[in-house]
Each structure stands twice: as C-alpha cells, then as structure tokens.
C-alpha cells in the first residue's frame, strides 16, 4: 500500500516550472538528477555531511540529499546549471575558474552554491569567516586554499557590481 503511493510535486527549477509524480521518499537530489536530468548537482555521501548536493531552495542553501522532493513542492530551486552561463558566469563561478578553486570538480557545484549563500549572508567575509562558512562542504582535492581565494574573488566582484545576491535571482530565475 505504502509502496506505490505517489505524490505530485511542482517546482520551479532554474526558472522553469516542472511537475512530476514521485514517491514521497524521493530525495530532492534524485529528483533533480534522475527525473530532470540536472546532473550538475552531485551526491558525495549518505549522512548529509559533504555538501556536494547543495542547491538553493527559495534562495537559501540546502543539502538536496536531505530534503524530500515533496518538501520542496511549490518552491524555487536553483542548481549549478542555473547559476550562470559560460558567457555570463556568476562571480562565484568566475572566482573558481580564476583562482583554481577546483581540481576534480566533483564537489564544486555544491561548494559554489554554498559560497553563493555565504556571500549573500555576509558579502564581505574575512578569511576565517569563509573557512567557517564552508563547514558544510568537503573537498578532497584542493586543500581549500584556492576555494577561499575564489570566494574572496567573488566577494570583490559582487561588491564592485553592486547588490550581492542579485545575480542569482537574475540568472537563476529565483524570486
């Protein structure tokens, strides 16, 4: 009885409305990857530690492996695919590229989404604040130093562009 019950969820993902029938237990990350084919969001653990799955839910960073798709019903979701395009990179993406903030790139989408949220809450963070702000992500490759530099780069870019946080809404179709 329980097995086959399905629920309808409607989400706005990167500005596009998506509706699907899913099992209630469907994790948001599986919904994004398997249902919508948005494979930029990754899965690095099963205990909600690594942050590889981080997306923005109504503008706030969340671990999409620890949110049911049905909990996000009606919400706006921004994934790395909606962050910026190659032609118009989000400053955080630009920072990661400029400062060599990634190696294998597997953690990167999640780390970037967390960084976007971090800069929204604290547009001008110190190095220490950045390192603490990255508590919810794990990277096995970079040693974090260039991730910190990437976030600093993005903070500067955002400051010179004006309103922090605006960028995501603009390219991600958020609220």
């Amino acid at each position: 009885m329980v097995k086959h019950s399905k629920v309808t969820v409607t989400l706005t993902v990167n500005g596009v409305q998506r509706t699907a029938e899913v099992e209630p237990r469907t994790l948001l990350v599986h919904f994004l990857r398997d249902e919508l084919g948005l494979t930029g969001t990754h899965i690095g653990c099963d205990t909600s530690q690594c942050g590889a799955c981080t997306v923005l839910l109504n503008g706030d960073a969340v671990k999409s492996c620890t949110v049911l798709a049905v909990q996000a019903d009606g919400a706006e979701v921004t994934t790395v695919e909606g962050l910026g395009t190659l032609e118009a990179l989000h400053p955080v993406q630009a920072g990661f590229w400029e400062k060599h903030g990634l190696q294998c790139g597997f953690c990167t989408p999640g780390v970037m989404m967390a960084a976007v949220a971090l800069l929204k809450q604290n547009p001008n963070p110190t190095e220490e604040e950045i390192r603490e702000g990255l508590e919810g992500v794990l990277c096995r490759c970079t040693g974090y130093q260039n991730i910190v530099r990437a976030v600093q780069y993005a903070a500067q870019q955002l400051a010179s562009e004006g309103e922090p946080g605006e960028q995501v809404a603009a390219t991600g179709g958020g609220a």
Partner: protein
Amino acid sequence: MASVFGAAVKRREDARLITGRGRYTDDVQLPGMLYASILRSPHAHARIKRIDVSAARAASGVVAVFTGQDLAGKMGLIPTAWLPPDSGIRTTAHPALAVDKVRYVGDGVAMVVAEDRYAARDAIDLIRVEYEVLPAVVDQEQALEDGAPLVHDDAPGNLAFHWKAGNATDEVFTQAEVVVRQRFRQQRLIPNPMEPRSAVADYNASTGELTMWLTSQNPHIHRLLLSGILGIPEHKLRVVAVDVGGGFGAKIACYPDEALVGFASLQLGRPVKWTEDRRENFMATTHGRDMVLDVELAGTRDGTLTAIRVRNVANMGAYLSTAAPGVPTILFGLIVPGPYRIPYAGVDVRGVFTNTTPTDAYRGAGRPEATYLLERMVDLFAREIGMDPVEVRRQNLIRADEFPYNTAMGLQYDSGDYEQALDKALAMLGYEEFREQQEKLRQQGRYLGVGVTTYVEICGLGPSQVAGAVGFQGGLWESATVRVHPSGKVTAFTGTSPHGQGEETTFAQIVSAKLGVPVEDVEVVHGDTNRIAMGWGTYGSRTTPVGGSALAVAADRVIEKAKKIAAHMLEVAEEDVSFADGVFSVQGAPSRQVTFQEVALQAYLAWNLPAGVEPALEGSAFYDPTNFVYPFGTHICVVEVLPDTGEVKILRYVAVDDPGPVINPMIAEGQVHGGIVQGIGQALWEGALYDEQGQLVSGTFMDYAMPKARFFPTFETAFTETPSPHTPLGVKGIGETGTIAATPTVVNAVLDALAPFGVRDIDMPLTPERVWRAIRNGRDGA
C-alpha cells in the same frame, strides 16, 4: 610569442565543471537503463550456509538477482597484478561475489538489478542469508600469531608475502655509536575521493561490443583486466573515464563491483548502472596505509647517519587488491633512506591477510609511510645526540655535486639541490626567529613547536623493464599521439588518465610550447580506450613525467616531419631551416618563412611533398622512461598545542617543493595544497577504526574526520626547479609531495611543542585526547 610553458594558464576543463556540464559516471543516462545494488556482508568472517533470493526476485521492479553461485564458470576471478619477486606471494581466489565464505564487512554477497535505484535498494533487504559466523582477525600482528583464524585456507599463517631488500647487516648496528629504535603505527586511512565509485555498462549484442563508463584512474588497465574477467575480447570492450571525481589511488584497482556491472549487462542485454553510496565506499573501496613499523636508525655522536632498517608488518586486508603488494614493498622499501647519505639500509616486509577491507595505494602509496618513519627517526636521533634536527638533516643531505647518487637500496637519484630547498624553506619561515619566540612563549605557558621535513620522492613510474623486475604485471611506459589537423589545430591523445590534476591544460601547454601554436588550438583527449591506443593511467605522479614526456617526444616527431615539408616548401635543405614560435624560417634569410599552419595544410593537401614523405601530420610516441624521477623538498610546520584540551592548531605551513621545471604554477601549487591537507589529515584526524569483530566503527563522515576548510591557515608555498636529466622536459612530479611531507612535519612539530613534557611519540591521528593524555603522562612522569 612567449612560451606558455611555465604560465598560470586557466584550466580548460573548468569550463564544463563549473557550469554543471561535467559528465561523471553516475551522470550517464541511457534509455532502458537498469540499476544495480549490492548486498554486502555484515560479518567480517562467516561461512555462507544458505542464500534465499526468492523474495527479492519476486519484488516489483526487480529484473535479476545474482549470487556467487550464479557466477561460477561464467565470470573470472578478480586478479592481483603486482607480484613482488622472491616474496613467496600467495594470491588466493577472489570471486566477484563470495561463494563459500565472506572475509570482511562489505564483501559482496549478491547483486540485485532493477528498473530503478529505489527498487534495487529495496530488494537488497529482501535477500535472506544464513551465516555461520567465524572468529575474525583484524590486527595484522595478531593474524600472524599461532592459532589465529585463517582468512584463506590456502594461506597458512595468514602470510601473503614476505619480501626483503637492502644491505644493512646486524654488525652495522652492533658497532654503531648511537642507535635509536622506535615502533610506529601507520594507521589505516580511507581515501574517500568525493565521487564514489560507479559503473555503467552497455552491451550491444548485435555488435558484441560492451561499453563501460568507469570511475577509473587507468581505463586501459581496467579494459585489459575486465576483458579477462568477462571474457570479452579487448577490441570489443570500450572503457570511458573522462570526468572522474578524484581517485587518490582508490580508483586504480579492479574491483568485483564494476566487473559485476559488466556481467549483468552482458547477461541482460540492457544498460546497467551501479553507484556505491558512501557507506559502501567506506567498506568496499580500498583503504590505505595500515602498517606496523619497527625501525632502527644508527649514527655517530657527531650527527652522521650510518644505517637504517625497518620491519614492516602490513595489513593487506582480506584479498590482495590489484596493486596492493607493491605498496608496502617496492614503493615503500626502496625509498627508506630518503634524501640522506645513509650507506646501509634494509627492509623486511610481511604482507598479512586479515578480515578487513583490502588495502591498496592511497596518495603517495608507500612513500608517505617511509618518509614518516625516516623523518620521525631523524628527530629522535637529533634528540638523542642533543643536536638541532635541522642540523642533523643538513649534515646528512645528499649534496648537489653528488648526483647522480646511488642509494643503499639500489636506486639512482637523478638530480637535486636538497640543501637549497631546505634553506629556502627555513628563510621563508624565519627558523632562528621562531626558535627564539618559541622559548619566550614557553616561559608564558604556551606550547609552540616546529617540524621540518626534508624528503625525496620516487615517482614517474616507470621504466617497463624495472616494472617487470619488481613484479608489476604491466608496462609503465606511456603512449601519446599528436595529431595536427589541416588547419593547424591539434588534438593530443594521452594514455594517462587525469582526474583533477589538470592535464587537459598542462598537456596543451606542453604541445603548444613545442609546436608554437596557441594553447587554445590544442585539445587534449584522455580517458577513452576507443580514442587512445594504449596507456597505463594516472597514479604515482607518473602523468607528467611519463605521459608528458611521451607527448613531448610525439610533438618532436611532428616537428621533425614538418621541418622536412617546410624545407621543401621553402626550397632549401632541411639543415637550413630553423623552427621557433611556430614559424619555419631559412637560416640567414629569416624573412623567408612558412608558418606551422601552412605546413600542416600542405601536409594534408600533399600536392607538393618532398620525396619519400607521406601525407598527413601526426606523431606518436610509446615512451619508456629510462629511470624514475625524484622530486624533493622541505616542508616546515609551526603548531600550537593547547594544553587544556590537547587541541593542535596549525599556525604556519611552509612548503618548498622541487618538481623540476613547473609547467603551470597555479596547478602545481594546487596539487601541493591538496597534498598537504591530506597529509595533515593523517597526522591529526583521519583513521579507520575496526572493533574486534571486524566492524568498521569509523564508517561514515559522521565518524571519520575528513579535513575541513576551517582546520587550516593559508599555506606558504614555493618551488625550486631542478630539471631531471631523465625526462625530455626535465619535469619530475608534484602530485604526491604534499601528502608525503606533511604528515611527519606536523607530528614532529607537535612533539617539538611537547618536548618540555618529555613526550617521545603519540600514535596518529593525534586526536585532542591523545595529545592531552601525552601531556598528562609527561607531567606526571616529570
């Protein structure tokens, strides 16, 4: 045009990775794809009495269930590919799914294939297995004891191999002025690349071709081994591993799981995907280190080191993983004398079966363990004779004028100026000033310490003859093809398989610098056995010294041919043509020139080629290095120990590495950062813990402490660049130096901080509690 060799060119692989367009194995979606899930043993050691898969088979969405019995005769065993000579090695049967016995928690018992991930996972819970639980053995020394449970009936005493090397004799030690002895435990580590292992197999019955996407560091090795296991001829098996989310050694091995995915696709004629979750990764992906080391270091009262020998009891886990036997033997043993002039050295290594996850290479593989014990011993020796540890190092470092240098372990070190790196690092830190400050702060009850490591690394594996001589069941040469297109654009193919190291960029830089074409005009192709003839993959810091060298040689062959064509076009003799910055010109009449692109076009048009020159412009190399390469350097760390909690704070970290000429300083620096963090991870936080029943207690990211951003200060890094005479570009390697150097550096720093308490050793990881206890015991003892 300035050469791009040595420039901090932005990485080209990043364009897809920062926009979410990478294609990692689990991202591959195929029509009609099935999903596999693996039932793993909950026991470390048990006899399988009965498996009932009927409920799982009947569950909705389930397509097939396989057990070990179902595979018998249809699928080969999982092989071991490194067999150290004269070691009496016993490779025991390793079926992809356990048949009679499970031998570690995580050993595969059955595989479910279903229409989706969720159904596959649900069906796992429906399989009933009756086990007869047997006593387990977890510790390698206990496993060697009489009466220990036998992991394999055909490996008496649980001894997998026993390997000895070196020239150290008992007399050297009995006659020595000073001998220090210490036992070290190299705790077991879990590599934990952020991308879990994954495989997608797609069998096309009409062509007989099997395509497999794999999380692999060496797709061609995987193709070779899987072709044997699955009985698919190599030319019908394609392995793809373009975007791989880190490996650190854990994606070298040929695992049962990936083979099973191929098997399932062959059986079912549909694409099958399997991705481990992190808990499976903890249990079933190879671990690293896990050695018990008894070391003796001999020397004179005035600080000259004379001999070192080591007894190593290495925990191999339940089966010998693909490259595992080479790690505690060849990769460990040969580098034991390190960067010092030590005339006598010896190693005695026993590899032991236990009921734990198999171990294999983990970043540095053998060399971090050797460097750790050596650097710890040098500090203990310095303490013993009352000399500054830096002075002991300086006095014993091989001098710049002594290269090539033949070591006690039979290696010939290529080149170096070890003391220069040491001096540079000391200057960056301000060593003398630190010592003064340290003394002052001690008076105020603050405990700072400094650790200095001078290391040399063996990498660039390796000359194929040597590979054969040390029992590696493959070659270690590398292939490269530089294909110039009619427009002068270039595709470069490499048999190495980068997965984060950035060779799509640095290899383009090598080719661009050679051919004088813009770096954007060079595309680097890797990780696809259908596009690259052959290759041995990426590990052991071999990619740039061996794969990069192969590319350089291939590019030289292109230039050689292009020059012939250019001379013909310019109507002069070949000797009269010079080539620089992408332009062929006539010596003495530099205005007469043709560009590389014009030559490329002519090579393809072939309207007017010199006699005997074939059309097209392409060069290939199958490059076999003549020797290893030996990066070196000095790392220094300053820590503060908080005596109330035992916490260790890293205050400064200075790294000076010599990887030979640096192709891309930004990328090289990134490799150093990542390595340092992994090395410090071992020193302070990481450690796999089994209980006596063989349950992995530290089996999730909740328990196993991965380094986080807030644990570290900004590292201070620099390079010296001493070319290796053995490689065409002089390059050495940079991928593992941080991991090799950082662990002893940090531990020595902590022990230096605790010197007032008389603390001589603390087991890694140096958790706050262990440090706190060491202080307390020291205080009580004092």
